[in-house]
């Protein structure tokens, strides 16, 4: 880290923290960025926030530009776990303390979520696997006898597509509901495509009882298709976005899992800040927060943050 | 130089047939024999099949039947490259050049070898220009050249390959006097050195003075073949079109009544393109010829008058009313422009003939000026086809399916029936056969006689003198002289156009 960033009046050092955000035009990371900035204002930390626009190669360039600016620490929201590994190495080589936010660094196939990539101060994230499990629990609650399940996946190629599904059937089964997956089709994370996909899956599998959409946006789109087709199928989403919570409230979808990106951002910056000030030095720590399952019954537990 | 050659022919075509996939039979049982070192003329009306025959020779079209012998051996050229390699260089009628490359690059487009060698090519180019007696900037981009200059570049390209047979399809159609002379000199000089030429032209005087033998095509078949010495212009015309025309073409222009109303007046017209302070008037019934050299600005002048050059300043009045500075206003005021480059400026390549012809006056052929009546359009096209003798499969043909001269007639046909009164014709007879040329000149006279005014640019001063009542000489964007047609001569116009005043002194421009 550098020491050339000025000191404020009371002698406290003013830290400069670089944030390499995976994409500020995507609501979830944008909300994390918002949380970071709010916390930074409170802590008196200067933020340099770069937008990778969802491109791994741009993130690599951004990190290079950040290193050139010699910040005291970096928060990185990886576009891609594999690529982020190289970036973390580079940051480490430049002696910049780094906290990974929202997704894992290092190949998820090889590395457990909680086995944080060495060299990072910490990984601060929600547990995608656990969230998938929570969704499974909701499902078991609304379609307890099991039955035909259709999955609306995110865009092919995203790690979440796998992660958010992995625990779903297990935790549903643990509650006594076993599902037969009749269809898995991509909704590309967007409402519109998910609506079409659900429409089409319904017309080919009219008996579908449950849709698991891997994001709230897609769940909402799916709900429209379901109601338009006059089907009785239930829908479970994941994410806890405003759209999703509203849909739970209105009964369009049965439940969702509450992610809190702003809190996540705050938590991430705090973690880094305390490491920098020496208040709590950490090494490869796994920091997470609770993502509760939300249904009509406990709506109050989730204030949507994105 | 009119010595007939003996020995085996350089190129011989026998029983040549070519039909296009749309059913048009362009050539049937055609034959041709070109001897080494001779200049062979190929003539025929528009659509007779001359260009088709040339494309077959050049390897650009496969023939449907017949044999081709090159130096006595039967050959089949599947690509233009094969013909080039064998020693045949062809100048196509439609001057295909690469517009984004320089003149130099175009001239040596097909040159072999691994390097561009700009320096060596430059000296070679200079030598070529020297040999030919023409000057052009080797670095000029071809897209910026006037059509005549492009024609010269194509000629240079063909000559640069050092071919044994040079095939020229209407090389002089868009050239003015001096360039035309350059072409003649080249043909004469090179044929004296042993290069053979196959020469296609609608200028029969050229054909008669340049060639040793002549082949006449009509409707895709050879109707006559013989020594040039055995022909005179009348006989040749007879052979080509089967009727006598010369009398009509040579007829002098009718005089204009002095009290005829002024139809068009142009005052102080200047443009960024180089037109400088041009003023003139045209009365009803007048045909004004614009004489000048290639690049003197005649086209720019017409464009400025027509409002096609938006940066032109000055006044244009039709019937005493000011005309707005757009082609749209000009068309509305009764002006018509037949531009010089029919492919780029005259015709919409994706439209059939009938849609091209109706384009300028479409509202008039439409119900409520909004819904085109296709029957009326087709009818108009059929009328144009009949009036102008356009050789084509029907009004549904695309411009690309027409021979060069017939395409030109379609451009002309666009303006015939729309009630235009001021006709501006930029090289209207370029590439048009003798018969049709007479028809077009007749039309020009008819326009005038019907109370219209005609401004006609032509590089053929003879043609100007044949129809114009008055001649304006253009040089460097100005009008430098005015003559009554019956008081001047081709020689005088040439002098004036070259910047020599009456006394032979150079005008101070």
């Amino acid at each position, binding site marked *: 880290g550098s020491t050339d960033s000025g000191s404020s009046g009371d002698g406290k050092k003013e830290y400069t923290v670089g944030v390499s955000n995976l994409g500020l035009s995507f609501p979830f990371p944008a909300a994390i960025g*918002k949380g970071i900035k709010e916390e930074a204002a409170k802590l008196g930390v200067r933020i340099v926030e770069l937008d990778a626009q969802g491109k791994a190669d741009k993130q690599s360039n951004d990190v290079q530009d950040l290193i050139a600016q010699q910040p005291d620490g970096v928060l990185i929201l990886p576009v891609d776990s594999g690529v982020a590994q190289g970036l973390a190495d580079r940051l480490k080589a430049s002696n910049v303390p780094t906290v990974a936010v929202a997704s894992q660094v290092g190949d998820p196939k090889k590395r457990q979520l909680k086995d944080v990539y060495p060299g990072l101060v910490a990984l601060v994230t929600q547990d995608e696997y656990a969230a998938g499990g929570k969704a499974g629990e909701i499902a078991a609650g609304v379609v307890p006898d099991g039955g035909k399940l259709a999955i609306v996946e995110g865009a092919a190629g995203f790690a979440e597509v796998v992660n958010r599904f992995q625990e779903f059937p297990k935790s549903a089964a643990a509650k006594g509901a076993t599902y037969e997956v009749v269809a*898995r089709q991509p909704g590309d994370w967007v*409402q*519109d495509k998910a609506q*079409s996909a659900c429409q089409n899956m319904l017309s*080919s599998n009219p008996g579908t009882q449950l849709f698991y959409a891997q994001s709230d946006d897609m769940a*909402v789109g799916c709900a429209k298709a379901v109601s338009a087709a006059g089907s009785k199928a239930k829908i479970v989403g994941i994410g806890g976005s*405003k759209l999703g919570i509203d849909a739970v409230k209105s009964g369009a979808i049965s439940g969702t899992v509450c992610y809190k990106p702003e809190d996540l951002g705050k938590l991430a910056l705090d973690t880094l800040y305390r490491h920098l000030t020496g208040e709590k030095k950490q090494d490869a720590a796994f920091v997470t927060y609770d993502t509760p399952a939300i249904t009509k019954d406990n709506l109050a537990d989730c204030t949507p943050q994105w | 130089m009119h010595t007939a050659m003996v020995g085996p022919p350089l190129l011989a075509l026998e029983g040549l047939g070519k039909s296009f996939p749309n059913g048009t039979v362009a050539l049937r049982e055609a034959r041709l024999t070109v001897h080494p070192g001779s200049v062979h003329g190929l003539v025929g009306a528009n659509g007779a099949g001359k260009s088709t025959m040339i494309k077959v020779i050049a390897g650009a079209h496969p023939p449907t039947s017949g044999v081709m012998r090159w130096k006595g051996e039967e050959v089949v050229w599947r690509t233009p490259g094969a013909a080039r390699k064998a020693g045949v260089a062809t100048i196509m009628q439609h001057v295909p050049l690469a517009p984004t490359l320089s003149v130099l690059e175009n001239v040596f487009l097909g040159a072999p070898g691994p390097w561009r060698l700009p320096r060596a090519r430059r000296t070679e180019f200079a030598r070529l220009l020297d040999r030919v007696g023409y000057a052009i900037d080797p670095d000029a981009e071809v897209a910026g050249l006037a059509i005549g200059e492009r024609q010269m570049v194509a000629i240079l390209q063909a000559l640069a390959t050092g071919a044994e047979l040079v095939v020229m399809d209407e090389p002089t159609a868009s050239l003015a006097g001096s360039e035309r002379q350059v072409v003649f000199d080249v043909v004469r000089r090179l044929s004296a050195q042993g290069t053979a030429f196959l020469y296609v032209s609608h200028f029969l005087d050229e054909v008669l003075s340049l060639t040793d033998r002549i082949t006449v095509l009509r409707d895709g078949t050879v109707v006559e073949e013989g020594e040039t010495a055995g022909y005179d212009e009348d006989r040749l015309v007879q052979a080509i079109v089967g009727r006598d025309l010369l009398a009509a073409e040579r007829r002098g222009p009718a005089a204009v009544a002095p009290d005829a109303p002024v139809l068009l007046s142009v005052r102080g017209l200047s443009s960024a393109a180089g037109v400088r302070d041009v003023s003139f008037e045209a009365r009803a019934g007048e045909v004004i010829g614009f004489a000048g050299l290639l690049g003197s600005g005649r086209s720019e002048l017409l464009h400025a008058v027509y409002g096609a050059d938006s940066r032109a300043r000055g006044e244009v009045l039709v019937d005493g009313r000011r005309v707005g500075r757009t082609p749209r206003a000009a068309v509305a005021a009764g002006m018509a422009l037949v531009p010089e480059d029919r492919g780029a400026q005259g015709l919409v390549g994706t439209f059939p003939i009938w849609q091209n012809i109706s384009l300028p006056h479409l509202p008039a052929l439409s119900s409520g000026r909004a819904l085109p009546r296709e029957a009326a359009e087709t009818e108009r096209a059929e009328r144009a086809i009949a009036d102008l003798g356009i050789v084509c499969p029907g009004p549904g043909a695309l411009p690309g*399916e027409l021979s060069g001269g017939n395409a030109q007639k379609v451009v002309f046909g666009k303006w015939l029936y729309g009630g235009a009164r001021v006709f501006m014709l930029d090289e209207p007879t370029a590439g048009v056969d003798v018969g049709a040329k007479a028809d077009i000149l007749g039309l020009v006279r008819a326009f005038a006689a019907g109370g219209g005014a005609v401004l006609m640019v032509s590089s053929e001063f003879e043609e100007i003198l044949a129809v114009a009542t008055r001649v304006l000489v253009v040089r460097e964007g100005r009008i430098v002289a005015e003559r009554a047609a019956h008081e001047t001569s081709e020689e005088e116009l040439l002098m004036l156009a070259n910047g020599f005043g009456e006394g032979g002194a150079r005008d101070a421009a």
Partner: protein
Amino acid sequence: MPRETSTGRSRIAAALRPGNAGVVYALLLIVAILTLLSTQLGRPPYLSPTNIINILDQSSLIAILAVFTTVVLISGNFDLSVASVAAFSAATVLSLVAPLGLPVAMAIALGAGLVCGAVNGLIVQLVGINAFIVTLGTMTAVRGLVLILTDGRTITAEDPEAQQSLIALQAGYWTVPHVLGLLGAAAIVAGAVMVLLARRSGGRPVAGAVTAAAGVVVLVLDPVLGFDLRLSKPTYYLIMIAAITWAVLRYTVIGRRLYAVGANAEAARLSGINVSRYKIGAFVLNGLGSGFVGVLFAAKLLAINPTGLQGTELTVLAAAILGGTSLFGGLGSVLKSVVGALILFTLDNGFNVLNLGANYQGVIVGTVVVVAAAIYTVAGRARQVRRIREPQSQPQPQHPQAGPPAEIEQESLR
């Protein structure tokens, strides 16, 4: 001569040739294959009314964009900014609908689209910059505006009343009862008009009489068959927009001139056509159309996020070009572009119905697109060689290597 230009019969025959209607055949082929596969695999019938209604509904918005993009392509330009503009107007309408009410919000959103189109058109036409780079720039810039407007968040229409008004715009189905009856009546009227017109221009009123007779037959059949047409609202919008645009392009002076402007702007200009007006007009129309589609998207989703619709511009262009529209202007048909869009959505729908793995969809879509284009390029060649063009020495080659229809002298190449 083999070509008959203006009789109705030969024109219908011409329209049905593979070279002309290739994209339709490609669609039919795809549908046939999917129907077969879904039967084979024991899935529910592919050609069920519900599924057809779904496909039409799903493709309608993109197809509307494709219609307007086709107009721009015909005019000889290019527009990459449609998706950004649609997202922008969606964001606009969603932010304004609660305070201002739908009509005003919608007017502003449409206005925003129109302004974007006008900016494109003015820069392209008056400054003379290549449309590709201009619209790439405005695509980025307008997307930036969306980001500013949304501040990185999803915008939703929260007010229930506003939501209801938006939903009314888009959701639900209209049923046209007794379609056959209506069609029959329309045919009778059209036939009568044709007979009248033919009389006036002195032609034979055969075609009109036939049309009217067919109308009577259909009308009589209606009570027997009683076929009702139930389609989603966006499908009706699409049908209306496509039909009107098609008719304008096909039957009016404006349409003819648009084609002329796109095929050879200089020749059009010298024929007295105001080229700038048509070229800019096409952009403005496209902007307006994108704005409308944006509003429909907003109404459909009731939410838009800053990346909404990103990448759609390529889908739209693909639809238009699959439909045979030339990238070099002067050639194209809006109806075929609609069919192009249908092909793309039929594939997506087919994957969903057959439950094909996501990983394999890309390869199949790509291959089908190329093969579909190949089929009718090759089928069309047989006819195109009849329309061989003489190589033209134009300073600005207008059709340097345009798609299927501008094949120059291919015959002699092979």
